[in-house]
């Protein structure tokens, strides 16, 4: 299993604040992802990266931005938080094993509440 760490785990913040959600992994995986998930709803991919200095927008449009300066870290930033950004944010990596086995592993998530 991949070791994926997300901080903070819970964040309550006021409108207009800049926030950065941290995601780090210790397995050296090239591919990393950010998903947004509202309560009771499906996962939506908002950003992904296939390696250092590579970032792409996902299927769901998001006002957040990401960076990938190091393999281990994939932080997500909101320049000006709004109540509509309230959600759970999940970071994930992609692992490819022997004989074509592959899967996505998830971090514990950050629950964000913007007041």
């Amino acid at each position, binding site marked *: *299993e991949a070791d994926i760490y997300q901080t903070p785990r819970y964040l309550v913040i006021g409108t207009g604040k800049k926030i950065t959600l941290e995601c780090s992994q210790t397995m050296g995986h090239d*591919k990393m*992802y950010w998903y947004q998930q509202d309560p*009771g*709803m*499906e*996962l939506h*991919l908002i950003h*992904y990266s*296939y390696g250092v200095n590579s970032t792409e927008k*996902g*299927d769901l449009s998001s006002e957040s931005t990401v960076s990938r300066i190091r393999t281990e870290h994939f932080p997500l930033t909101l320049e000006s938080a709004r109540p509509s950004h309230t959600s759970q944010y*999940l970071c994930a990596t*992609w692992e490819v094993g022997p004989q*074509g*086995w*592959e*899967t*996505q*592993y*998830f*971090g*514990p*998530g950050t629950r964000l509440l913007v007041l």
Partner: protein
Amino acid sequence: EDKVVQSPLSLVVHEGDTVTLNCSYEVTNFRSLLWYKQEKKAPTFLFMLTSSGIEKKSGRLSSILDKKELFSILNITATQTGDSAVYLCAVKKSGGSNYKLTFGKGTLLTVNP
């Protein structure tokens, strides 16, 4: 547009019951189907299926894929309260640079004592 549809959306059973969760998909260039269990936090990986008709098993959980009919089922026998969770189905497409998953909405399973 790629689609992954899970049914039922919600299911309530008693401990000891057997449940079957369904996942149908419509994607071009199908590569694999994955099942995850999501309790209060992040999804945890259960199975990956790529070949039709081959059952994957882990304890009381098992899953099988039908590539002709484009669906998969996840079976849980002798359910326990700890099985209560959202079960997510996801599909991966083939292609050298395609490492994304399309998720269904999930099935919320509640197992009552």
